[in-house]
C-alpha cells in the first residue's frame, strides 16, 4: 500500500501479538485492542493487578472501552511499554467470589414486551433472567456514573429501539446490544427500557467516596423490588 505522503504514514500498530494490538494515540498514550470484549475485560483486570503490585510504569489513566483499554499519560517509555504489553500472559477473566454491587430495581419498563419478543420469552421471564444474571462493569462513559454492564449471553443481546426517545428518565434500566445500563440522569436515549432504579442518585454522588457506584471491573447484580402501587 502506498501512502503517497512517504514516511508520514506509520504502520497500523505499534505492535501486534496473538489477539492483541497496541496502537499509538498521540504521544504518551497507547490504545490496546483486544480480540473480544471478554478479552478486553481480562486485560483490564490484569492491568489493575499489575498496577496494584507496582509493576506498571506511571500512567495517569487506564480507560477501558468495549474492545480496548486506553493507557493515557504514560510518564515515559511508552514504546517500551508497548513492546512489553505484547508479551503479557493474560489469565482468563475470573468469576470472582467477592461481593457484588447490588442494584435494587423495579422491572416495569415500557419496552419489556419488545425485549421479551426479541429474547423469545414472555414478559414475565425478562426480570427473572435479568436479575439472575451476574453482570460486570466492562467500561464507563456517556455520563459520570454510567456503566456498560456485560454478562447476558449472546442470544439475549438486544437491538436498540428503532426511534430513540428524546428523554429517558434518571434511573431507567435499559438494554442495547450486549450491554445493560442504568441512566444516572435524564438524557435522550435509544436503549430498551426494562425497569427503573428507584434511587438513581446512588449511581453518582461526587460528595461520596467513591463517587461512582459502578467502576470498571466491578461485579453487579440487579435485585428485583416489588412494584409499589
Amino acid at each position, binding site marked *: 500500500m502506498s*501512502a503517497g505522503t512517504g514516511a508520514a504514514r506509520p504502520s497500523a500498530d505499534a505492535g501486534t501479538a496473538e489477539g492483541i494490538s497496541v496502537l*499509538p*494515540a*498521540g504521544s504518551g498514550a497507547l490504545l490496546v485492542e483486544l480480540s473480544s470484549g471478554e478479552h478486553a475485560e481480562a486485560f483490564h483486570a490484569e492491568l489493575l493487578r499489575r498496577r496494584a503490585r507496582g509493576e506498571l510504569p506511571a500512567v495517569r489513566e487506564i480507560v477501558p472501552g468495549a474492545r*480496548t483499554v*486506553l493507557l493515557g499519560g504514560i510518564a515515559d517509555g511508552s514504546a517500551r511499554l508497548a513492546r512489553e504489553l505484547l508479551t503479557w500472559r493474560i489469565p482468563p477473566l475470573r468469576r470472582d467470589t467477592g461481593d457484588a454491587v447490588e442494584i435494587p430495581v423495579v422491572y416495569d419498563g415500557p419496552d419489556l414486551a419488545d425485549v421479551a419478543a426479541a429474547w423469545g420469552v414472555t414478559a414475565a421471564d425478562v426480570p427473572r433472567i435479568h436479575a439472575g444474571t451476574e453482570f460486570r462493569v466492562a467500561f464507563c462513559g456517556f455520563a*459520570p456514573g454510567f456503566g456498560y454492564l456485560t454478562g447476558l449471553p449472546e442470544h439475549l443481546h438486544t437491538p436498540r429501539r428503532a426511534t430513540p426517545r428524546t428523554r429517558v428518565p434518571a434511573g431507567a434500566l435499559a438494554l442495547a446490544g450486549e450491554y445493560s445500563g442504568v441512566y444516572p440522569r435524564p438524557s435522550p436515549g435509544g436503549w430498551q427500557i426494562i425497569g427503573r432504579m428507584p434511587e438513581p442518585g446512588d449511581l453518582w454522588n461526587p460528595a461520596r467516596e467513591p463517587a*461512582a457506584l459502578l467502576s470498571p471491573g466491578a461485579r453487579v447484580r440487579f435485585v428485583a423490588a416489588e412494584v409499589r402501587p
Partner: protein
Amino acid sequence: MTGAIEVVRAGALTTVQDAGRIGWAHLGVPRAGALDAPSRRLANRLAGNPADAALLETTVTGCAVRADRPVVAVVGGAPCRVTVDGRPVAWGAPVHVPAGAVLDAGPAVRGLRSYLAFGGGLLPEPVLGSRSADLLSGLGPAPLRDGDVLPLGHEAPRPVAADVVPWPAAPGELVLPVRLGPRHTWFTDEALRTLTTATYRVSPHSNRIGLRTEGPALTRAREGELPSEGMVLGAIQVPPDGRPVVFLNDHPTTGGYPVIGVVRETALAGAAQAVPGTRVRFVGAG
C-alpha cells in the same frame, strides 16, 4: 483576607476553570480545565497564585465582577479592554482593584477566551479535586449568571513582580501538529493526504468539547461502527460528515467515531483562541 466576587456581567459564557479533573476518565468524567493552559498559568502567576488556582474563563464577550475586598486581578489570554469602575487599566498585568469597584474585561479584541485571575484564587466547592466547570457532564460550578457570588481565597502577601511578560498571541493561522493513529487505517490514503495538505477553517460550532472544522470531508476506507473506545485530549475524531473535530478539555471520555490522529497537546492553547473562520492546517508530527 478571604472574600468573594459578585458577577456583575456574566458575558456569553464565563466559567470557573483550574487545571482540570484528571485521572477520572475511567468513570466517564471529562478532564475539563482551562482550554488555554499557558494563559491560565501565566495569569495565576502574575496574581501571585499557584499555577492551578481557579480563575474565570470568558468567551468572546468578556465579563465584569465586583469584589468585596481589595484584590489583585490579572486579565490575560485573549486581549481585551480592561477597566476598573470605567477607568482603563492594564491588560495582562496585575491590577489593584479596590473593594466594591467593578473590574470589567471587555470583548476579546483578538482570540476568544480571556482569563481573570484573582489573588487568592476562586474557591467554589471542588468536585473530585477540581473547581472546573465541565460543560459536557455538568460537573463543577455552573456557567456564571449575573448576580452569582464566588468565594475568594487568601491573597498571597505580595504578588510576583514581573516586568515584561510575553502572552501567546491568538493564531492568524492555526497549525496543529498531528500524530496519526490510533484509527488512521480506517481512512483512505487519499483522506490521510487530504488531512495534512488541505486547508480547513474553524467552524462557529466549536466549543469547549471540540474544535469543529469546515473543509474537505475525509473518506473512510472501512465502514461500520467502531465499538466505544477511550479518547485522549487532542484526538481528531471524524464523525460521519467527514469533517475532523479536535477534542478539547470537555471531550467525552469514550467515543465511537474513529480517531485519525492526535494533535500535540501544546498546540491546543492556540485552538482555544482560534476564532471561527481561522485557517487550520494539520501537519505531520511523526
